[in-house]
């Protein structure tokens, strides 16, 4: 009797062991690592143009241009056109255009950035006298589940104080990290303009 019980128990344990080994064999995890390396032939963002349109007088339009045609920074950027003159107590619709002027004809990559706005963010920083006399609000949004500004379309509002300062424009590349702030990601473009409020 005891040996029969032992045999049944032994059979159950053997079967359980077999089934366990069976599933553990098939559950073996194996990692496979794939790397996508850098691809040659990038686009360069050589030129940043800011277009200022006076909202109360659309004919009153001005441009400012920052240009660096040597992407490897061999030469200093051309800032001869990077001067902005705004009137006091005005509201301006401001558009950012980004070009690659190493190509002939030059390539406007603004729309490409806009289409990829879910992981790009253009933002401005003010320093000097304009800091408290100029308000900047982005007006365009991306299509993320929580929409964030892209920053290619903005509204600049000047108050009644004449002042001068520096305007910095930065394009941030934020793949899968965009949260509406400057912090995440890397800088694609970092440009400077002189801005006068008269």
């Amino acid at each position: 009797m005891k040996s029969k019980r032992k045999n049944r128990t032994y059979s159950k344990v053997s079967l359980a062991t077999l089934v366990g080994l069976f599933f553990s064999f098939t559950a073996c995890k194996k990692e496979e690592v794939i790397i996508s390396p850098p691809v040659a032939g990038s686009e360069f963002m050589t030129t940043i143009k800011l277009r200022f349109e006076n909202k109360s007088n659309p004919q009153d339009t001005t441009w400012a241009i920052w240009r660096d045609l040597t992407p490897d920074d061999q030469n200093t950027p051309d800032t001869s056109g990077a001067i902005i003159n705004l009137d006091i107590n005005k509201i301006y619709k401001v558009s950012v255009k980004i070009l690659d002027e190493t190509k002939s004809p030059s390539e406007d990559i603004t729309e490409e950035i806009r289409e990829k706005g879910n992981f790009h963010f253009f933002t401005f920083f003010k320093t000097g006298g304009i800091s408290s006399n100029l308000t900047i609000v982005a007006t365009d949004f991306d299509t993320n589940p929580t929409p964030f500004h892209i920053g290619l379309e903005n509204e600049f509002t000047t108050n009644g104080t004449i002042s001068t300062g520096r305007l910095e424009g930065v394009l941030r590349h934020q793949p899968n990290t965009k949260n509406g702030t400057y912090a995440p990601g890397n800088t694609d473009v970092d440009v400077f303009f002189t801005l006068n409020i008269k």
Partner: protein
Amino acid sequence: MKKNIIAFIVLLSSVFSSIGQEETFNKYFIGINGGYSALLGNAIKGDYADSSSGFANSNGVNLGLEGGYFIKKNFGFAAVISTNSFSSNGLQALSDGFQEDFEVDSITLTASGKYSMYNFFVGPIFSYPKGKFIFNAKVLGGLVYAVTPEYKVDIEDQLEATFYQRAASASTFGLQTSLSINYLLTDNISLKLGVDCIYTKPNFSIINENRDANVGRKITEYHQVFTSLNTNFGISYSFGK
């Protein structure tokens, strides 16, 4: 599909139940087998832009345990516990796709786990012994527990951007048809060579972790047919005369 299977069962029942006189036969059998599996369908596609692509390898393996009881010499019921597994394939295209969509210099994609199906089937078995050979046919149905692999994507050197397509599991109904030939080594022990086809359509609900942005391929559910053609070799033990 279901009408064809029912007709097949009825035909086999009428054919096999009329064969031969009643004589002593082994009522029970158990066996183990394994072999090569070929996966068909969209699961083996590797097109990044196509959401039906599963990036599964079309070549895999199968392993199975079976057992059964013969009511008559030619007819009985069988149960099968088996598994098919397929690794990932075409992951370079998946990685390159993410690299292009996120516009980054480099991406590292790590795949862990496999497409695995754990099958628990029961159904009728039809048997035709001829000398040392026994020809068997089975039509089974039951539960399939299926699992997908997991993908981790690291973006350049941005640790906070790492995201995951987590492994998913689904339980669903599956069907198996099989044909096999057993060669009797002794009255009880035989070698088995078989082919079978397993059909199932699991409905995976997929969790993506740290995918806050609408960028790149993002699969939240995967509901495709998995058809596996299997060849297997094994050993069987019959008893209970």
